[in-house]
């Protein structure tokens, strides 16, 4: 069948020849180089029996199966895990050691720092004490002041009460004095009445009544104040 269609074959052969002739200057030198090294290598390949190749085949397949089952590439190999564990441990150790180093540094600085702090404390402490004393004094003074003001208020209240009483007493005294004076005047008037006219006596009675009414008013007024 193939040989019966020479035209098709001819056309195929022409296409292949065209491709080959186009690629020959590029690819053929490469091919020649390949041929050179392969000729060299093939000298050392055994040509008598296939047993060597069969054993090689079995070895490679077995080795491939073994290696790729042990290290399938899914997870990092064990030695890497160990390394990671070691690294983690070291990191932890370093983290634990770090504060110790800081403590050491602090210890080395301690004497200097202590001196400085002591100085500062010495300078600051009396100030603080003074401030506290002042504060206490102020508080005590404030308390005292408050107490005094309270007492004063109380005294004032008391005083006010006493003054009012005094005023009332004075008023009463004055009233009494006035009454005495009135009595005296009455006596004098009586003495004079015996000597003077009855019209004049009537006028004197009126004035007496007025004074009495005024005295009554003053008394009632004082009483109301005391009640308040």
């Amino acid at each position, binding site marked *: 069948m193939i040989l019966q269609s020479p035209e098709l074959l001819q056309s195929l052969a022409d296409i292949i020849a065209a491709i080959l002739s186009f690629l020959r200057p590029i690819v053929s030198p490469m*091919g020649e180089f390949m041929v050179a090294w392969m000729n060299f290598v093939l000298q050392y390949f055994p040509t008598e029996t296939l047993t060597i190749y069969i054993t090689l085949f079995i070895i490679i*397949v077995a080795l*491939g199966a073994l290696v*790729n089952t042990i290290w399938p590439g*899914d997870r990092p190999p064990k030695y890497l895990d160990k390394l990671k564990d070691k690294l983690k441990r070291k990191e932890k150790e370093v983290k634990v050691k770090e504060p110790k180093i800081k403590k050491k540094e602090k210890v080395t600085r301690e004497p200097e720092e202590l001196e400085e702090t002591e100085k500062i404390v010495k300078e600051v402490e009396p100030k603080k004490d003074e401030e506290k004393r002042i504060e206490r004094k102020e508080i005590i003074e404030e308390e005292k002041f408050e107490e005094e003001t309270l007492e004063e208020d109380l005294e004032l209240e008391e005083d006010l009460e006493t003054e009012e009483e005094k005023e009332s007493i004075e008023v009463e005294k004055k009233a009494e004095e006035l009454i005495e004076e009135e009595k005296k005047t009455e006596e004098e008037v009586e003495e004079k009445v015996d000597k003077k006219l009855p019209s004049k006596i009537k006028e004197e009675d009126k004035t007496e009544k007025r004074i009495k009414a005024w005295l009554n008013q003053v008394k009632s007024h004082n009483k109301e104040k005391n009640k308040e």
Partner: protein
Amino acid sequence: MGAFPNLVKGFIYMAVYVVTTIVIPFSTFTFIKEIQVLGVSIVLEQLEYERIVFWISAFGLLISACAFFNYSSPKQSIRKGTFALVQILLNCLYIWSYKFSGATEVKFEIVFEITNVGFIIIDVQNMVLLYMGVYFLTIILKGYDFVDFIINRDKIREKRYKIIEEADNI
């Protein structure tokens, strides 16, 4: 991928290479050993027929074994790169073995009713040279991959394990 899928993949590719490098060439050469065209038997006048078969089966076995190792290895691993390169080199030798065994100049004798009429010689040397050139380029590519896998080994590993860890986390 896990170990088992990798091995399955390796076995599949090995089977493919066994078929393409051993079974098909062997059957082809056996078939054309004695072929009749229009009653005229064209006998493969190859004293080296056995030699051809020998080289085909020898390099075919090696190529198939390397294919198994190559395709069952994890991606971008150095062993994969190594065996890919070895496989290409063996492929070159395999193809060249045709020439070495005399298969590039296949000589057919035309026999008509016991008498020998003449012979046909098919010279495929140019074709083989072309193949060799193509394989040369492939070797360069595989060599580059191999070097890349070695140089960027840590990066490739980090990437791979990151992807796996992310997948585990999901």
